[in-house]
């Protein structure tokens, strides 16, 4: 395993997980952002 594996894996895992959380959790009514748009696109509504 390369020396820099932690530096590559840590931010990758953390920010991918957070991005999923952003898309998965519903926004407040009337609030529109990238996460809510993707959620509508994936959910088909």
């Amino acid at each position, binding site marked *: 395993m390369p020396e*820099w594996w*932690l*530096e590559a894996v*840590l*931010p990758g895992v*953390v*920010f991918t997980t*957070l*991005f999923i*959380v*952003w898309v998965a*959790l*519903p*926004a*407040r009514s009337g609030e529109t*952002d990238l*996460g809510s748009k993707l959620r509508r696109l994936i959910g088909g509504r």
Partner: protein
Amino acid sequence: MERLDRGSFRLPAFTLSSGVAKKRLVGLTLMAVILGLFFAFNRFPKLDTVQGDLDVVSGAVVECFQGFCIERAPDTSFVARWVDFSVTYLQLVTVGMTFAFLMAGLAEAFLFPPGSRLWSGGGVLGRTLKGAALGPLMNLCSACIVPVSSALRRSGAGIEGTIALVQGSSTMNIPALSMSALIFAPLLGGSRVVMSVVGALAIGPAVAWIARRGHEGAAEEASEAAQELQNMVMGEDLAQPWGEAMREGFREFARSSVTYFFRLGPIMAAAGFASGLVIQFIDPDRVGTFVGNDFGGVLIAATLGILINVPLMFEIPLVALLLLLGMGVAPAAALLFAAAAGGPVTFWGLSRIMPMRAMAGFISLTWLVAVAGGLVVLVVALSVPSLDWGFRPTDDAAEYRAAERTDGPLWQALEEQALEDQGPVTGE
């Protein structure tokens, strides 16, 4: 407030009816967990790393430390050295940056969510003190602290609180201060402590004052007042169920952290390369000439300091190495502060949340504090020239000073020693 009996004591029962209070409680818990992990797996081991770097720079042959090689191998090009240093720098700050983006999201979503009034109160002095107190707890370099300071700026910290946080974290953190005090002689170590305190407490309010004098600053002040009024109208007492508050908080935490990562990450990487380029111009053969114990040396060191970004505490082995190569104690004091206090990444990142007038003030004042500190050290060092003000009198430092007195410049002595060790060159 409701109270519960516990034997003879009466403890207050905290009412967590409002969404802000619930978010803040969860935010503080998350902060304790993230901070604990960060310190255990990154900050405490870093003390050993810096100690190892100091052993490297005081060894017989100076090797590379944290990607910085003072000795230039003939087969490596300037570009290769620059890229190597910049990539190593980015590797070193990645964990700190990840922590910083998470803390920025945490601050916006949980600690100071919309409707929160905790940060913005207290006037200029109060906001400065809060920033200066929170900074050392964050314990991040001047680049990594940018996302956190951006989040707090949006939460009402004002220019003064934002800059106090940056300075408190990058220069006034306890590990760097204690390590400086342990390694360097009291004049140099003490100058770092004094400059850090002055930087954390005085630069922020001064920059805020400069910003308010401009049209941009006045407009911003009006906008901040409107934001504060809106927060007061929204109130901290608005009741919100746990489920809704947590869903809202975690979504905002994720959105904010990811947005900071994409908004600031590429800029920081680019500025890291810019900073890496500047540090390549440090030439061991010219250290004594350009940064000797004089006024010009202080100016050059302070300017170099604000042109580079370094990982947390990197400035300590860097200054130790340059002292051994002939740098004067006065420029060393200026560099020890300025290298930690800010650099291209810091200034570029903060320029997105502050007016240009404020940024110009911040850069100038950081440089001025470094120059002023360096000049005070210069006056003291020149007043008592018989004392060595650079290192604490340890065996290693004493050996090097003895070597320099006997054999001339240290670098030359080391090279001669290396040649002698290789034995005489025999012809055919």
